[in-house]
């Protein structure tokens, strides 16, 4: 009989349901099959004309039809992932989930199609200003609820009947991991026995692509989209924007056991550490990343040698992969040369606000299946960052504990330690 408290005397937090949507497909069965066969979901953008853009590829989710806006697609993606996770967990009743919602969501904003629609209605045929838009705004009542920052969380809370005030959060590209961390903390405090943690992102629209492009963050390997995301390779040239959602049902171990739920994994520890060096770049000494990973290990009550696999942030930008190497090799020491580390982003791209949640789902599946998904497109190793990236082909391994890293603009660093069910 396993202890019902962790090494630090807190309730153990387990995963009893997961759901995922990415450019590879909807649902964990399809995603896992493709992810472990090394399939790429990256393609040329067809959602809007890309004339004049430096980057014309993405891992957009196109099989749900043409979205009205990022808010609507993010909502749809979150909805699908949450439905799958809650369904698998068997927790609660339809529309009555017995815990709070923590939702990682991109900042919600009105987009060009709406702005132009309001502009056209204004009838102004010379210079159009916000004064013109304001004159006719009241004719578009639906845009109020649609473009509030809390609108996606509100929809998910209403549909699944989560409890209390839903949290919409952003820690940039670490958001999905932060959502899980907030759920873990709530269960450890005894505030709740269960939490629904979701990360979603459907941001592939012209302005969002251009914003990242202007920061020189994106790969411009437009001619061979499936080869564009090359984490840890010497010729990596930026990340590939992508869409998707990941959802996890977290429960206290006791509550899950009491209702006879199947335990998929354990969220053993969460670590974070803010970097005050720069808005988009990591401190060159790697100290915040190192502290983040160490904090996660300490929170899990584990030593570096206990970790069997790293689910990398691995964005495929020159900067990130170098800094992640520095962080990991400092924490794990010489062992890092042999410790498998792979990047899901080589196949699904960078799902931004959703990434931490999607990659946590894949980490749970990695442990469950004792099979590590590969880093594809690893054709030209970078000698400056020698790593076992599980190159190009999935690999079986005996795995007990894995760590999933998420780093983001604004000095955001979060690492999660996930383990198999205690024997």
């Amino acid at each position, binding site marked *: 009989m396993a202890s019902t408290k962790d090494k630090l005397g807190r309730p153990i937090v387990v995963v009893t349901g997961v759901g995922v949507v990415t450019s590879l497909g909807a649902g964990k069965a399809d995603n896992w099959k493709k992810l472990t066969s090394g399939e790429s979901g990256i393609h040329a953008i067809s959602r809007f004309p890309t004339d004049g853009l430096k980057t014309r590829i993405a891992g957009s989710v196109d099989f749900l039809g043409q979205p009205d806006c990022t808010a609507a697609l993010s909502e749809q993606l979150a909805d699908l992932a949450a439905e799958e996770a809650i369904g698998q967990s068997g927790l609660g009743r339809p529309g009555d989930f017995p815990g709070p919602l923590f939702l990682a969501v991109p900042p919600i904003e009105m987009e060009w199609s709406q702005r132009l629609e309001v502009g056209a209605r204004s009838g102004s045929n010379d210079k159009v200003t916000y004064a013109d838009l304001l004159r006719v705004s009241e004719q578009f009542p639906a845009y109020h609820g649609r473009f509030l920052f809390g609108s996606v969380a509100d929809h998910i809370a209403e549909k699944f009947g989560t409890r209390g005030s839903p949290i919409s959060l952003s820690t940039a590209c670490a958001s999905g991991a932060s959502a899980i961390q907030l759920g873990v903390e709530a269960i450890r405090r005894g505030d709740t026995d269960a939490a629904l943690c979701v990360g979603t992102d459907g941001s592939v629209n012209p302005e969002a692509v251009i914003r990242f492009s*202007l920061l020189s963050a994106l790969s411009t390997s437009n001619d061979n989209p499936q080869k564009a995301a090359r984490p840890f390779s010497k010729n990596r040239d930026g990340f590939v924007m992508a869409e998707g959602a990941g959802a996890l049902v977290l429960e206290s171990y006791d509550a899950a056991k009491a209702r006879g739920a199947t335990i998929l994994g354990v969220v053993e520890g969460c670590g974070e550490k803010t970097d005050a060096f720069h808005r988009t770049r990591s401190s060159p000494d790697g100290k915040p990343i190192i502290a983040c990973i160490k904090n996660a290990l300490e929170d899990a009550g584990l030593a570096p040698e206990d970790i069997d696999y790293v689910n990398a942030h691995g964005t495929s930008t020159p900067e990130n992969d170098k800094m992640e190497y520095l962080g990991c090799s400092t924490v794990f020491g010489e062992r890092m040369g042999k410790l498998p580390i792979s990047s899901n982003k080589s196949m699904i791209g960078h799902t931004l606000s959703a990434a931490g949640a999607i990659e946590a789902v894949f980490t749970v599946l990695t442990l469950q299946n004792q099979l590590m998904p590969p880093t594809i497109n690893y054709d030209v190793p970078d000698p400056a960052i020698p790593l076992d990236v599980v190159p190009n082909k999935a690999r079986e391994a005996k795995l007990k504990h894995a760590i999933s890293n998420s780093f983001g603009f604004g000095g955001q660093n979060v690492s999660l330690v996930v383990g198999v069910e205690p024997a």
Partner: protein
Amino acid sequence: MAENAREAWITGIGIVSCLGEGADVHWQKFNEAKPTADVTTFAPYIVHPLAPINFDLQIPKKGDQRQMENWQRIGTYAAGLALDSAGVKGKTDVLSHMDMIVAAGGGERDLSVDSTILSGMPGAPNPPAFLNERLMSDLRPTLFLAQLSNLLAGNISIVHGVTSSSRTFMGEESAGLDAVRIAVSRIGAGQSDIALVGGAHNGERPDLIMLYEFAGLSLKDKFAPVWERGSGKGGFALGSLGAFLVIEAREHAEARGAKPLARIASIVSDRRKRQPGNVTASLEGLWDQVKDRINPKSAAVISGATGANPATAEERAFLEAHGELAVRATGSYLGHGLEPQFPMNLALATVVLQHGSLFPPCDASGLEKPMSGALNQVVVTGVGHWRGEGLALVEKVV
């Protein structure tokens, strides 16, 4: 909060608004009871613009200021004031384990780029190509960083060195409420010792006025205090404001010799689908969770009412049912700042508790009544104009 939770003290506040900055000027202006607003700049829409602020005082590097838009400057400035007030500014040993939860919107637009595209795109030979071309060449690359919601927190880390955790909550009024609620819960449970919590809002933005005007919620033409905006749709005037609190475990404050401004005895929030009567019902449910701790003889309510109905009308019904408590709506003076409104009202609760009395009413509709006795407790309400309801009980530490 658990019964055996650690006490959460407010040991620092940093506030800026149309009234100015700091506790004293707010107290003074509330006592004058003469709210003003800008009815011309965005006419017919009314706003409460930020008082003149010398950002250099809290954001010394011009390079940092240039990387921000105004909502971030306001917030980074207010955060600095809060750290000063708590006596932890520059103290790396404290700041490196200080947790941060920021309530933020974001998305500040470049109005001239938007206008160029709106004007030129409909007649362009290839409209989508025109959009791409203009955005690629006209957007400042760093504007994105001034738009991202989590980059207020990022700027606070860079400028003030707050570097333990950094989390940003979005979602209008609820974001501010839940930021404080989660920070207090973490402190209560021993997951955190000290936290910087708050947010900022730039109300002088036509793109934001438009977002609320889609629902016809913007206050137009004639200014009136929030309770005097009628039983129709009412409306709110956006306000520019920044509010941060330093909240810490009593043990942590005592160990460093910090004095409490007030204690957050309880903070609760909820979300009810908005149907007639649900705001009142939600507030009653939350009230039931705090009422046993309240001594009505020495307690008052600081309301975050926006002036937009039905939310404000329903909050009024709730407050009338608890008429033994004097009520003040600070929105009459400050306007409505969405995300930071609740942290601002918590900060203002500490201000009145420090004075031990309430400022006079500012309401010809009769809801706000004079209060002459001593003040030891404040109930802060926060009702989202669209979603989310919450209450906090803030007390004098004796």
